[in-house]
C-alpha cells in the first residue's frame, strides 16, 4: 500500500506529459566570437575566397525602406537624405530594411561598413555619417560651406517649417496615417493591434515635435502648411535657375536635404489635407525639376 518515497515527489502524469514536449526547438550552437585569423581560416575553408570578399566588402545602410536596392528611395526623409548623399558621393552600398530597435543609437539610418583591410564591421550612426563620408569618399566638387550663415538659415527652414508640414501631413492627418504611415512603418509587425498602437504612438510623437518647434500655443494644420509653402518659396528663390543649390557645380548635402522632402511629397500618394502642401510644391517648377534631376541620375 505504502508507495516508495520518490513516487510521492513525482509530478502528476499530465505535467510530465506536457513537459516531455519541451524543448520545442533546439537551435544550432552559436559559436563564441572568433579571432580574425580563425575567421579567415574558416571562410577560406568553407566558401570560395571570392564569395567571401564580395560579401564582406559591402556597406549596408539600415533604414526605413522596402527594398535592398539602394536606388529605391527610402520612405523616411532622414533616411532618404543620407541615402541620397551616399549616392551623390558615389559610395557603393546596399540598403537593409530595419527599425529603431536594431539601431545602437535608437534612430535610423545607420551604416554598417566592412572593409577588406580590417575585416571588422563598424557601425556609423547618422550624426557621424557626414564626417565618415568626408573621410572615405572621393573628393567632391561641391564646396558649399555647411557652416555658413545662409546655409544654416535655409537649412533651418527644411528642418523647421517643411519638416513640421511633413509630420502633420503624414502622421496627424488621419487619411495618410492609416493608408501610408502605418502600413509602411509597421510592415514587419502586421499582427492586428500592434500597427494601431504603434501608429498612435508615432502620431503623439509628431504632435509633441510640432508643439515644441512652434511659436504658437495652438498651431493648426493650415498654418503649418502655409509656412511650409512659404519655405518652399524661399528655397525656390534661392535655387532660382541654378542646377544645384548655392550655385554649386555638383550636387551636395543641401540638395540631398531638400530632395528628401520634395521627392517623398511628390512620389508618395499623399491624400487628405496633405494635398495642400503637395500642390503648393508643384507650383515651384524649379524645385520639381531639381527633384527630377536627382531622381533620374541616382534613383532609376
Amino acid at each position, binding site marked *: 500500500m505504502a508507495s516508495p518515497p520518490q513516487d510521492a515527489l513525482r509530478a502528476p502524469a499530465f505535467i510530465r506529459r506536457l513537459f516531455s514536449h519541451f524543448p520545442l526547438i533546439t537551435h544550432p550552437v552559436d559559436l563564441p566570437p572568433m579571432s580574425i585569423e580563425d575567421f579567415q581560416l574558416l571562410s577560406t575553408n568553407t566558401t570560395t575566397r571570392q564569395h567571401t570578399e564580395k560579401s564582406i566588402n559591402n556597406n549596408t545602410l539600415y533604414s526605413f525602406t522596402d527594398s535592398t536596392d539602394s536606388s529605391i528611395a527610402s520612405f523616411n526623409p532622414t533616411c532618404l537624405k543620407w541615402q541620397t548623399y551616399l549616392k551623390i558621393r558615389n559610395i557603393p552600398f546596399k540598403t537593409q530594411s530595419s527599425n529603431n530597435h536594431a539601431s545602437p543609437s535608437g534612430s535610423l539610418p545607420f551604416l554598417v561598413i566592412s572593409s577588406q583591410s580590417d575585416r571588422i564591421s563598424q557601425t556609423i550612426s547618422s550624426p557621424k555619417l557626414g564626417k565618415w563620408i568626408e573621410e572615405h569618399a572621393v573628393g567632391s566638387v561641391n564646396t558649399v560651406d555647411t557652416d555658413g550663415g545662409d546655409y544654416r538659415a535655409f537649412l533651418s527652414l527644411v528642418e523647421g517649417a517643411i519638416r513640421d508640414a511633413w509630420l502633420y501631413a503624414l502622421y496627424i492627418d488621419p487619411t495618410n496615417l492609416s493608408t501610408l504611415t502605418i502600413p509602411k512603418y509597421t510592415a514587419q509587425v502586421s499582427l492586428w493591434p500592434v500597427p494601431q498602437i504603434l501608429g498612435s504612438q508615432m502620431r503623439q510623437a509628431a504632435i509633441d515635435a510640432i508643439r515644441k518647434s512652434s511659436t504658437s500655443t495652438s498651431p*493648426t*494644420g493650415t498654418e503649418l502648411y502655409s509656412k511650409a509653402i512659404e519655405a518652399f518659396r524661399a528655397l525656390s528663390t534661392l535655387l532660382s535657375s541654378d542646377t544645384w543649390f548655392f550655385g554649386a557645380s555638383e550636387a551636395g548635402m543641401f540638395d540631398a536635404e531638400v530632395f528628401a522632402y520634395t521627392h517623398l511629397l511628390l512620389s508618395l500618394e499623399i491624400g487628405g489635407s496633405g494635398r495642400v502642401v503637395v500642390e503648393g510644391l508643384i507650383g515651384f517648377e524649379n524645385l520639381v525639376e531639381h527633384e527630377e534631376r536627382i531622381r533620374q541620375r541616382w534613383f532609376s
Partner: protein
Amino acid sequence: MSPIELHVWNRAFGLPSLDPECLAAIAFLSSAIPQDLWVLVESNNASVSPNGSLPALKDGPQWIGGFDAIVSYLNSKSAGGSDIDRDLTASQKAQSIAYRSFIRKTCLPIISLSLYVTNKNWINVTRPLYSTFLQFPIQYEIPHAHHAQAVSLTAHLTSLIRDIAAEDSRPLQPISTAFAGITAITDKSDKPQEKEKITTRIRLGNLLADFLDPIKEKLAGQEYFFGGASPTTIDCLLVGYISLLLVPNLPSPWAEEILRKEFSDIVGYTDSLKLTYFTQNITYSTPDETDKLTLTNWTKRTIENSPRSWGISDNIPLNKEGYNTQSTAFWVVVQGVFGLAATVGSVLAYKALTTEGKVDVELKEEVAGTEVYSTIRGGVGDVDTTGASNNGTEGGRLPIFRAEDMLGL
C-alpha cells in the same frame, strides 16, 4: 477710427515686454506705422489671440495672432505702404524668411536657458517678476507654463544646465560636524572647480556663437541686417531676441558677459536699434473689459484647455475651429458619462427601494394530464415553499425550469 491695439506680455527688465516675439512686434509696429495709429496693451491675456500666444493685434473686430501673421496682415492692409521689406530683392526676401526661422530655432533655447532654466536667474529675477503683474491664483499657473516650455526647449542642453548650476552654487556651510569633512574636501579642490568654470564658459560661448556668428557675418559692420537705409523685419526680430540676452540684470549674467566680450559689434547694433524702438514714447492703453485677464476668463480658458493639459485629447486640428470642437466634444463626453452614471444610479436606487427581494416565477406543471400555469411570488431561493404550495402528484419534486422553456418554445 480707434487705433490698432497690440496686445503683449508685460514690460520687464526695462524693456517693453518680457517676450522676444512681443518685443519684435513692438519694434515692427514702431518702424512700420505712425506712432499715433497704434497703442500698446499689456493685457497678458494669451486667450485673446487666435493662435493662443501673444503678441496679438486687435484691429476693430479682427484679431491677428503671432509676429509673422501681424507683419503680413499690416502689409496687406496698407497695400504695401507699411511693408518695411519693400526695398529688398527677391533673394533677400527669401533670406529674410530663412533667417526668421534660424533666429527662432537657435536663439529661443538660449533665452530660455538664461531667463528660465538657469536656476539662480529664475528664482531671483524671472519668477518673482511674474508676481508683480499677475493676480493671485494666476501668478502660479502662467510662469509655471512658461517655465515648462523653456525646459522642453532646452532639453538638449542638460549637461550644460548642470554645469551652470554647479558653477553658480556656493560651497555649502557644513550643516553639522558630520558633514564637515565632506565640505572640506570640496573646498580644497577649488582649482579644478575654476577649470570647470572655464570649460562651462567656453561651451556657453559656443552655444551663443552658433546663433551669433552667422548674424555677425551678415551684419559685417552695417547698420542694418540687409544694409540699406532703414531697418527690415529681420532687424525687428533680432532686436527683440538679442535685447532679452543683453538687457536683463541677472545674478548669473553669462549671456550678457559673453555678448559684451566676444560680440561687441552685435551689442552696438542691438543698442542702437533698442534706443530707436524701446525708449521711444510708446502710447500705452488699457485693455477693454472683455480682453482683460480676469479670474473669470482665466478659469474659463483653463477649463476649455483642460482636456489637453490633462493629456486626454491632444490633437492639432486643421483649423482654428477644430480646437473649439475638440474642447466641446470633450465636455459633451464628460456630460454624457455623468448623465449615464446618474441614470444608472437612480435606476439602481429605485430598484433597491421598491423590490423586497421577492420575484415572480411562472410555473408550468402537468397536473393530472393538463397543463397548469401558476404565478408564485416568493423570495429568491425559497423554492421549497413553491413546491409545497403546488400540491403536486409527486410530493418532493421541485419545479425546475427546463432549457427549452427559456427559449420560449
